[in-house]
């Protein structure tokens, strides 16, 4: 009898998990479908003729008509969308008109460049922004708080384009501390065989120390500039979460008990701030992974942001849709990862 009950409990738990997974998958599929549909429609509403990107302004009427048919633009809208979704389900994202490459090849080339940049920027932004936020909260209203507030405000308000150019002028052109625009110097092109597409990782795996140092030197400045914006956001959020916690009764109790202030702040209050911070950091990271068109432009960085923007301005819809799926997947993936972290960090969420 007992064995039957255990078996039934296990089966019911399994059914629960299966149903949960099924629901998640369904939600995921619907999200992606919606994302694709909206992007597709936006692409068709944009007042740009997609054939112009393929054959330009000078092609003969015959060439123009052929290109239009090849792009499937002579079909009704719903049919164009159905064909596209059908192909995507078979793993065929089509070709980009602008680069002549399969969209997946392009994304495989441009996304790692953005990933590398966004990851280092986030590490810098979080590594510096969180301690600054905690200090600002702990010293609320004092000079430290004011200084950190000004730093944050500047990060919010200075245009990234301007900051990038000034950064290049000072640290690259004048001081010569870092390398200039691009991912590596021309002399280092093609030395590392791309395996992951992340130059830092590839050069380390292939033991190319010089390439690693050169790539890092190219990466530091754009990552620091993007990291600064991330820092501004993360430090403000950390400060407000911390102030909220520092007002709680358990903090008063801890202080009354004579626990050292540093321990009260970092152990008691910060411990409870980590949870909401996970979401903040994940969102900031996801934003950077979308690619930052302006930073990519100033630093001649071949990232996904400039790729998608350029494609959209040319109505190169395969590229735009492919890019959107990747960005969507990043958002959804990071959301799920932060959910998971939530569960790990907070027993109540399990």
């Amino acid at each position, binding site marked *: 009898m007992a064995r039957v009950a255990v078996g039934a409990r296990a089966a019911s738990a399994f059914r629960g998990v299966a149903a949960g997974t099924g629901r998640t998958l369904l939600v995921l599929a619907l999200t992606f479908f919606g994302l694709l549909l909206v992007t597709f429609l936006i692409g068709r509403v*944009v*007042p*740009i*003729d997609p054939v*112009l*990107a*393929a*054959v*330009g*302004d*000078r*092609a*003969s*009427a*015959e*060439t123009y008509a*052929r290109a239009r048919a090849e792009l499937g633009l002579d079909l009704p809208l719903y049919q164009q969308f159905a064909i596209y979704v059908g192909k995507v389900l078979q793993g065929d994202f089509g070709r*980009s*008109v*602008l*680069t*002549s*490459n399969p969209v997946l090849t*392009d994304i495989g*080339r*441009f996304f790692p460049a953005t990933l590398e940049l966004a990851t280092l920027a986030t590490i810098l932004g979080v590594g510096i922004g969180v301690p600054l936020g905690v200090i600002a909260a702990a010293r609320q209203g004092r000079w430290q708080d004011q200084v950190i507030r000004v730093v944050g405000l500047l990060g919010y308000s200075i245009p990234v384009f301007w900051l990038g*150019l000034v950064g*290049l*002028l000072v640290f*690259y*052109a004048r001081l*010569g501390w*870092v*390398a*200039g*625009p*691009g991912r590596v*110097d*021309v*002399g280092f*092109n*093609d030395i590392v065989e791309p395996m992951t597409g992340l130059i830092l990782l590839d050069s380390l795996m292939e033991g190319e120390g*010089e390439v*690693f*140092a*050169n790539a*890092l*030197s*190219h990466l*530091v400045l754009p990552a620091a500039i993007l990291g600064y914006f991330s820092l501004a956001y993360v430090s403000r959020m950390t400060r407000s979460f911390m102030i909220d916690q520092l007002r709680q009764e358990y903090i008063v109790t801890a202080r009354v008990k004579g626990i050292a202030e540093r321990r009260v702040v970092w152990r008691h209050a910060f411990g409870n701030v980590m949870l909401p911070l996970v979401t903040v950091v994940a969102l900031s990271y996801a934003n950077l992974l979308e690619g930052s068109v302006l930073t990519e*432009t*100033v*630093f*001649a960085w*071949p990232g996904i942001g*400039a*790729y998608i923007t*350029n494609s959209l*301005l040319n*109505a190169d819809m395969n590229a735009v849709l492919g890019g959107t799926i990747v960005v969507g997947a990043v958002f959804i993936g990071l959301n799920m990862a932060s959910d998971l972290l939530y569960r790990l960090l907070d027993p109540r969420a399990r």
Partner: protein
Amino acid sequence: MRHREWVFGGLMTALLVSPAFAATPKDTVVMAKQIDDIISLDPGEVFEFSGAEAVSNIYDKLIDFNIKKVSELHGRLVESWGVADDGVTYTFKMKKGLKFASGNPITAADAAWSLQRAVILNKTPGFILTQFGFTKDNVKDRIKASDPETLVIVTAKQVAPSFLYYCLTANVSSVVDSKLAEQHAKGDDFANEWLKSHSAGSNAFTLRDWRANEDYTLEANPNYWGKKPAVKRVVVRHVAEPSTQRLLLEKGDIDYARNLTRDDLNAIKSNPQIATQESPKGNIVYVGLNQKNPNLAKPEVREALKYLVDYDAIQRNILSGTYIVHESFLPDGFLGAIDDKPYKLDVAKAKALLAKAGLSGGFTMTMDAPGSSPYTDIAQAIQAGFAQGGVKLELIPGDQKQVITKYRARNHDSVLLYWGPDYQDPHTNAQTFASNPDNSDSSPSKTLAWRNSWNIPEMTKTTLDAVGERDAEKRAAIYESLQREHQKISPFIIMFEQIEVAAHRKNVDGFIMGPSVDTNFYEEIRKN
């Protein structure tokens, strides 16, 4: 703690001593340029500015023109050429002993194959050849090798021989290594897919690599029949932002910056390490006035608006060093080009003309213009000029492709854009600015005259007849008078011609800049 210090110290050292500031390698020339327009490097397909430049360094043509004197033609792969008395049969004798980069001999069969494929594929530049009556069904009869050294081309009707010759100097007429290409053909694509990113040519360079939106790299062709290039490699990197190009150049990380703005060029003047070189390019900046707008359809209004543009002030204040004032549709250096500048800002004259048209109180119109430099500034200056005559101009900035889409649908009042010639013969611009064979909305020929709904049966006939005039002097005279008439009555305010400026490190020189994008050559660049 110790550990952490070591790691930090190591990281900083790596950053500070990394060889990031070395000048470019000795045997390599590095250029920064906006090259995200490249969609293919197949000579039968390429038609974008950056792609055309790359391809013209990789592929050779049968004949070419002297970039200093465009009217002089010389053989590249042929030693002689001529037209028979029937006026339609052209014969080209190939030079002997020339080889492609692959080592394959260059024969008349390669030339025939290359021209045939361009006609059969009929990609964007295909019209340059199909306008001589070649179709996919007849091209194998009309363009063929009668023996390994002789290419015969038969046009559908008599044209000015120079018209055909100039079209053979266009990239679409490049000679491709047919043996190599055919090894990579898929189905009936004539290796189009492969040639987008590989090369099979015989000019000074071969294509090592093209990474869209990043860079392309050319390598010296070891089998080049001409004088060997002085450098082994040319790397052209996509750097979109002109200010970034300038920083790279000043720092010595690139040898050439190709897209500096007027401000950048002024700023580098004082740098003793940097020099500039320039060449007029055939790009013409103009305003098109749509004749569907009843006000703009009045001849007096068109003329008045031409008197309301302050050409000199715009050139001086916005475009100096990068554009010159030019008011006719043929760029400098073309057969029949004129330098007449009949218009300058004359508000009183414009007001009188507007009054004559019954619009003394002025009127309101819109102008679509690309929202990028220098068009935004030019558009605002035009707006200010029009306002002096009482014409209220509302500007509609847009992405360039968006503006062109609207233009092609003839939904504009007026538009500010530029036009670059497709090949070196005057017909290229005459056809688009001064012919409109069918003004209906469904016309297959979307010339600029058509886009502005300018119905001109007589001028169209003159323009189309001009290509049949076999006497070069008479032909030039036709274009001269055509342009003068066009300046008077057309709905085009032709304003400026572009000058291309390249800034370079002083220790590097020899970059040849011709009158068109496909006459910019790297083969004589050397580093001292």
